[in-house]
């Protein structure tokens, strides 16, 4: 900051030829420097430049039927252009009287990771960079301390007899911290208990990712890559349609399947029957039976999120001895 320029700048501007040329040159240099700084933008993917239509698209909950039809048609066209497949894009609504709950039998899980890859295929996750909703933890026997879990076990055969396996995915919490923190309501809990994301509304701040105690949310750090022919054409707006870069995504209990009477892809592929899924409000469902009668627990009960994802174990096999007669009072040895 130069001293004493105050009065000098006070003088009426003189337009000399030299002054004009210098100022003109400086202005040209400035503009070209800014243009150079912005030059990488010419490589911007046209898909990333929001069209007027996409820019003005309403939040999912504010869309009327015609809006939805238009948006689904736009997605259909975009997928056709990008992947050369005509997809079946739908928006199945939550079913009345249904609350989905997952049960995972840790006595049976062998850690084969078939669920991980079936999920990637079903839900059109990016293959490069690789993005997965399910993380299978190889646990030390005698501990449920997650810090001793092995995330990247790579043995020729599973299960390792000294370990047990605990797959983790979105727990579809009843008190979801991710929903609470989202500044733009881009993620919310549906009446059937599934927490969904409007991928066209998410601003990519990743606050939900920081808030999730189960590390269940994933961010599209780069453009998602799905090889030709690998795209699952049966897709829903709130679940497995292709995602843009810069938005969050997560497990939706395969709502494109489960809301139309099918089972989640991770369950269907499981070779051991460790995965159980259903409507907990239906007292005759298998999942209701499991929760009522099995030894169930939820992960990190202390964080108060009330997960809809239960772990349980079989009574046979986890029992160390045959039943014995109950000890009579005063008869204890």
């Amino acid at each position, binding site marked *: *900051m*130069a*001293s004493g*320029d*105050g009065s000098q*700048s*006070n003088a009426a*501007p003189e337009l000399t030829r030299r002054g004009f040329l210098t100022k003109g040159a400086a202005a040209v240099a400035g503009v070209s420097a*800014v243009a*150079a*700084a*912005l*030059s*990488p*933008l010419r490589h*911007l*993917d046209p898909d*990333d430049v929001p069209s007027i239509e996409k820019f003005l698209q309403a*939040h999912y909950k504010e869309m009327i039927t015609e809006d939805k039809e238009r948006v689904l048609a736009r997605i259909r066209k975009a997928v056709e252009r990008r992947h050369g497949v005509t997809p079946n894009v739908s928006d199945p609504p939550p079913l009345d009287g249904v609350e989905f709950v997952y049960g995972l039998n840790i006595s049976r899980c062998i850690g084969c990771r078939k669920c991980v890859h079936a999920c990637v295929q079903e839900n059109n996750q990016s293959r490069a960079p690789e*993005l997965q909703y399910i993380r299978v*933890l190889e646990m030390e026997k005698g501990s449920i*301390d*997650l*810090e*001793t879990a092995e995330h990247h076990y790579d043995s020729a055969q599973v299960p390792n007899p000294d370990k047990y396996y605990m797959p983790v995915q979105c727990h579809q919490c009843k008190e979801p*911290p991710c929903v*609470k*923190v*989202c*500044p*733009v*309501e881009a993620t919310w809990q549906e009446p059937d208990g599934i927490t969904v994301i409007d991928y066209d*509304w*998410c*601003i*990519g*701040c*990743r*606050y939900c*990712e*920081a*808030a*999730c*105690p*189960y*590390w269940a*949310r994933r*961010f*599209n*750090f*780069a*453009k998602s890559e799905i090889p030709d022919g690998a795209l699952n054409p049966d897709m829903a707006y709130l679940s497995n349609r292709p995602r*843009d*870069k*810069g*938005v*969050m995504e997560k497990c939706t209990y395969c709502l494109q399947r489960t809301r139309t009477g099918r089972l989640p892809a991770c369950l269907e592929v499981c070779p051991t029957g460790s995965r159980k899924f259903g409507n907990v409000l239906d007292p005759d469902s298998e999942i209701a039976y499991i929760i009522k009668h099995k030894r169930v627990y939820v992960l*990190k009960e202390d964080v*108060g*999120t009330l997960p809809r994802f239960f772990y349980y174990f079989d009574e046979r096999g986890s029992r160390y001895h045959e039943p014995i007669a109950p000890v009579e009072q005063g008869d204890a040895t």
Partner: protein
Amino acid sequence: MKTYCTFLWDCFRLSFVGDWRYHLWMTVLTTFALVGLYAYAQQLVHGLVTTGMTDQVSWGLYIANFTYLVGLAAAAAMLVIPVYIYRNMHLHDVVIFGELLAVAVILMCLLFVTVDLGRPDRFMHLFWRFNFPMSMLTWDVIALNGYLLLNLHICGYLIYCAYCGRKPSKAFYIPFVFIAIVWAISIHTVTAFLYVGLGGRPFWNSAIIAPRFLASAFAAGPAFIIITLQIVRRFSRHVVSDDALLTLRHIVQVAMIINMFLLACEVFTEFYTDSAHVASAHYLYLGLHGHNALVPWIWTAIAMNLIATGMLLLPASRSLGLLNAACVLSIVGIWIEKGMGLIVPAFVPTPLGELVEYVPTVHEVLVCLGIWAFGLLVYTIFVRVSVPVLAGEVTYAKRFGRPAGA
């Protein structure tokens, strides 16, 4: 309105006038800002994959700088409180530099949040569906923008009055000054609550974070202003008394002691309890299972803060040389401690116990440098313009030979 436009035009012209040192400084800052813009343009094309962030460590240098700068902005209150509440006249003539700093720094904060967004193009979704009061991020949006407007109004009004040769009307700015004091505390508290409220991140889930934030802000902020005021004094004719600097020294002194005390409380609670809670703190201070990227940083920061505290306690730090050294140490020490030292460890290990370390990329660093350069550029212009205007050297009357509105 016409007067106001002339005012803005004169400010614009003034910002280009200076000696060669001024032009060199501005050219260097502009260059860095443009390089940052270039790196950001690349980030827009390729996505946040150009940064070192991952699903495991999903916030990094951007949010770390953001957090630190919110504190710097809040520290303007440490100039305002002595002047307007305790009637400290030493600081009276320099209080506006604190407020101008707050404006420039909040702009930097907003930029740091923007570059961290995956979809900055959907920014306006904040206006359509604002998850208030549930999401602490929405509180922060209100707190930061409100603080920006308050300080813009106060500074803008005072400088504009000086330009018009009018005496500022108290009713137009004193109430805002008092609101801004409370607001300054709130911006940093709300920013702390952003982290504190997450039950899944034990490292942040501690009530002491907000007080620690304020203590460190009130140390680093006035320290920054001590240095700035000396630069203003050196390169302009604005009078900054030594007493003003020494008053600020008192503030830094006390804030630094409280900051170190709170740090000790935090460290004790974590390590003496030694529960599963301690993993992140262990990673930060001692390393965890062979991962120790942050260990040298945090100990450098602690050493800097301790030395600075020691220096500030000595009467010798009344000499400006030593005071400046102590200030630089606290500014850098707190930047490390509150930036990387607060944000990154909360993500290591992940909630599922995975250990992934975070190292910022060159891209990320360039974007950060660009934003810092831009902030300094804006602040330099503010100071460059406000000094002659407040001194009555550039006024409407001098330009047109008649008072404004006549």
